[in-house]
């Protein structure tokens, strides 16, 4: 709980972060930037869980536990994505989305 700040303000911020992430995922042209956008989405949910836990259901710790697991899994996800991007970079010397369009219908 933070003094003087209600849950509405924090949830507004996380929702804005979430949609910045979605917007970035759809518009960015660089694979690394897309990965950053995905991280924004995941972190918005992490903050959501903690805030909802603290403000609405402070007697149980389910939300806090959940957020710890999300952080760990997000790290694994990023590591895997980066390793695939590096492997792609070795072959085409680029991390731009428009260079990964070998397959088209």
């Amino acid at each position, binding site marked *: 709980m933070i003094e003087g700040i209600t849950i509405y303000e924090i949830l507004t911020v996380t929702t804005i972060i*979430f949609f910045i992430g979605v917007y970035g995922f759809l518009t960015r042209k660089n694979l690394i930037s897309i990965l950053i956008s995905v991280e924004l989405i995941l972190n918005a949910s992490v903050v959501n869980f903690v805030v909802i836990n603290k403000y609405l259901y402070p007697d149980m710790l*389910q939300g806090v536990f959940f957020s710890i697991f999300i952080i760990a*899994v997000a790290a694994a996800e990023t590591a895997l994505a980066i390793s695939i991007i590096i492997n*792609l970079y070795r072959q085409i010397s680029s991390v731009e989305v428009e260079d990964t369009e070998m397959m088209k219908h």
Partner: protein
Amino acid sequence: MDFSSFLLMRHEIILLAVILLLVVAEVSISNAKKSSVVHLAIFLFGIHTIVGFFKIDYGSLFGGMFQTNELIHFFKNVLNIGVLILLLQSGDWLEEKIIQQQRGTEFFILLFSSLLGMYFMISAGDFLMFYLGLELSTLPVAALAAFEVTKRISSESGIKLILSAALASGVSLFGISMLYATTGSIYFAEISEAITASNLTILGFVLFFAGLGFKISLVPFHFWTADVYEGAPISIASYLSVISKGAAVFILMILLFTVLKPLMHIWENILYGVAIITMFIGNLFALRQQNMKRFLAFSSIAQAGFILLGLITGNQLGTTTVVYFVLIYIFSNLAAFGVVQAISLKTGKENMSDYEGLYRTNPNLSLVMMLALFSLAGIPPVAGFFGKFFLFTAAASKGYYLLVFLAVVNVTISLYYYLLVIRAMFLRKSDNAIPYFKSKIYMKLGLLITAVGILVIGLYSPLYDYIHELSKSVF
């Protein structure tokens, strides 16, 4: 709770033991004899599949985070059979292509880890376990899609899969956080008591559904499917289209029918719309595909649309028909992918035009392919017909006549493009048809099992009654 109650997780424990044994094998077997890892892995997994059929107790563990019942146990066995067939079909590819690069064992370890994730996902009792299972089942597959590191196309499909999977799980988590906000719990049992159709709950449900819809490749979330299937190794494409999709359908069904049952008047409408566009988009895009892997990708999107007809009912009949259809779909799609893999392994050809005149040179392969496509299209003597028929019956029993009519229209469209392949194989003549070749024993066995399965499952009706009996345990 004593030690023996851990035996509820027998499937998971044995599979984990198999994974660890393979790690030991990777260290202890010298490089010259690495191809024995393939035999070892298939042998161990075969034992695991057989042990899975033995009787097991049902209950829940870890304060309700992990639960099993008769249907979940049965479905784990179905997944096991699917993976076993898939391993048999990809054994030759591993021996010829991958073992030379000293990388055979990783394939099995990643594949089995993903299967382990699916076990945990389908027997999850709360959203935390569900999320961990979902991620454990997705991440290794992304690594496997990028498995052929020397091929650019494989890396591209890997990056497309991992990025869209991460987006889907992020969106789905945001939805789960909203369900948590309105119900105050992440346990399924407590959520189903506290849930009401408030606006925030509905928004949370829609976001959550989007995440699972990605795994099943329903239409607004299907854009990754064709690219990933085309670029990934064929065995991984067939794993994604069969095992991964089957497990996601199963957990979606459990969640909709039990936890989210109070929202049924909402999700009925969502599924209704999604089913129609999924069937139409999948079928219409499949019409213009030339590459067999892309073709099967769109065909599997369309099949996902048909599965929604069973999900929309929300009752025991729906559960039975969905599980029955998924079982048949596993056999039919594995047979189709198996033939594509056998041909691609020997000749490197994957286009529909390369299949012209195949019946004259390789009659057995073309017969298996014909059975598989007939089963996918739903032509009477083979299993696929019964699967589709029961799905349509389930939807019609709830009064969705228009939806069933549109589904029948779609079956007709799909019949057209499945017959295009059959025409190429049987009626066309070609000067440079694929020459006769002999597959190795594993591939033959894998295709034989699928062909027998397609023929037998449809005609052996006690199986349907058995699933119907088991599906009582869900409610």
